[in-house]
């Protein structure tokens, strides 16, 4: 309850900030729409030459684009802005004030900045997923939809955990501004189903920076390619990842010694 109240207060502050820059918000939404058109154009070029990409039809690819957008939204609305704020605050010592507050520090670090207009992506992503699923000719039973949503959540959780580890590394190295760049660089690989890639790259996007777990895997669930046991496995892995990550965060906090006054 308390957490929700703080979250609401943070949301309000961030909303006010984005309202203060109206023009910026509008331009961003327009740019965002342009990118979407560009991506759809890319897809239509591919599928004017072929009907399938590694076994995936155009409907499924559109749905994948939707999931990819969801992950992208997570990155752009929370992960990027909060990383930037965190990196600055650890170097200039303003993290001290965050640590003095009687709230979980990881929670505040995750949610203190929100790029609110990115919520618009949620609408686009949902539209893409709905259209994509319909185009792929149904087969989406309620159970498959449920597991799809569940696995989208676990995928996000795994990426989030990875992010925690990367920013916690800053506690040890103090200057480590590229901590999230690698995440973004590999995120682009999530645009296409993991099985279009050569094995070595598929390994990286599944295990090292598990972007595929957040994009391809939910779609596989939607296509009914996953067994119950596999779904359970992903669930377990994401929980374990989060537990390990928050342990590392706690250790990092102990290490943090604050910048000199």
């Amino acid at each position: 309850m308390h957490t929700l109240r703080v979250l609401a207060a943070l949301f309000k502050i961030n909303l006010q900030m984005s309202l203060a820059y109206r023009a910026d918000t509008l331009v961003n939404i327009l740019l965002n729409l342009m990118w979407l058109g560009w991506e759809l154009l890319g897809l239509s070029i591919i599928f004017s030459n072929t009907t399938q990409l590694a076994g995936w039809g155009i409907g499924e690819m559109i749905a994948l684009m939707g999931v990819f957008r969801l992950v992208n939204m997570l990155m752009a609305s929370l992960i990027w802005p909060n990383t930037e704020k965190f990196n600055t605050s650890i170097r200039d010592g303003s993290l001290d004030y965050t640590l003095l507050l009687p709230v979980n520090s990881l929670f505040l670090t995750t949610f203190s900045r929100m790029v609110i207009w990115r919520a618009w992506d949620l609408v686009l992503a949902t539209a893409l997923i709905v259209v994509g699923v319909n185009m792929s000719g149904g087969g989406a039973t309620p159970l498959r939809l449920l597991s799809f949503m569940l696995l989208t959540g676990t995928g996000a959780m795994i990426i989030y955990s990875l992010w925690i580890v990367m920013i916690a590394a800053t506690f040890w190295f103090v200057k480590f501004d590229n901590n999230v760049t690698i995440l973004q660089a590999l995120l682009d690989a999530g645009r296409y189903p993991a099985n279009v890639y050569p094995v070595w790259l598929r390994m990286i996007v599944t295990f090292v920076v598990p972007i595929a777990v957040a994009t391809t895997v939910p779609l596989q669930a939607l296509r009914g390619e996953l067994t119950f046991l596999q779904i359970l496995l992903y669930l377990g892995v994401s929980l374990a990842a989060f537990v390990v990550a928050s342990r590392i965060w706690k250790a990092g906090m102990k290490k943090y010694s604050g910048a000199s006054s």
Partner: protein
Amino acid sequence: MSELIQVNQLSKTYKVPEREGGFRSAVRGFFKRKYRDVNAVQQVTFTICQGEIVGFLGPNGAGKTTTLKMLSGLLHPTGGSASVLGYTPWERKRGYLQAMTLVMGQRNRLSWDIPAADSFLLNQAIYRIPQAEYARTLKELDELLDLSPIMRKPVRNLSLGERMKCELAAALLHRPQVLFLDEPTIGLDITAQARIRSFLQEYNRRTGATILLTSHYMADVTALCERIIIIHQGRLKYDGAISELTHRIAPFKLIGVALGDPCPCDLTPYGKPVAGENGDGKQFVQVPAGEVASITSRLLAELPIHDLTIEDPPIEDVIERAFQE
């Protein structure tokens, strides 16, 4: 009175990477770091009672901020113990964080782009302040700090003094019982400094809050604190009343005389001549505290004196001496 803050043999040693200047040592340092131990705080012991305002003094790098950071729970000490309000600060229990505050004059806690009033609301949520109490506290702080005209402007549009007022308000909304203030008046002009000072005094009177503050402005210290703690190079040098410090460190007085004859005359037979502060034409001599009476009567008898004053040496000088001892 109960001892609210107890500090016992508190120590902090930093490991600091160090290298000589130049490209070569930079490369060497990349592969093999050399560390040096810096003893920022060494076996400092003191206690502070509820409701006290204590000045925490020392030159730059003396260990003041490090001590404050340990007491507010931001740093783990490398030795010793401390208890504030019955809590061990660096365990950072919720109850402790809820009951104390740290203000650092050189840092901002308020969001830059929005009015302070909005940041206050965030603090209300974080510190779980009930609406009625929040309204009451804010009204009280508004009375003392005159926040109304400034708290609705974006923080980036405020002057330094206005911002400090808002920073203080944000730090006090949850009615902390213990205040750690690290140079709360730094960079402010004289009027703003005086404003903050009288606010702290009034706040302490109304709420009975305990305050430990550092400042490089002696006016802050003399106005607010009866007791001071001096540390130098991490070690405790003095803990006691300001007046006592003067007796101990500088057991002399300054006699200022204005002579009827405007030409300066030699005062060396009476004591050590020192430069006066205010340019009112007075000449000053420094004399041992025990001989003030006899020297004064000699001066009056032997010289054409218009006006005569007896003063304590300026507190800046006394503290300067204390640092050097």
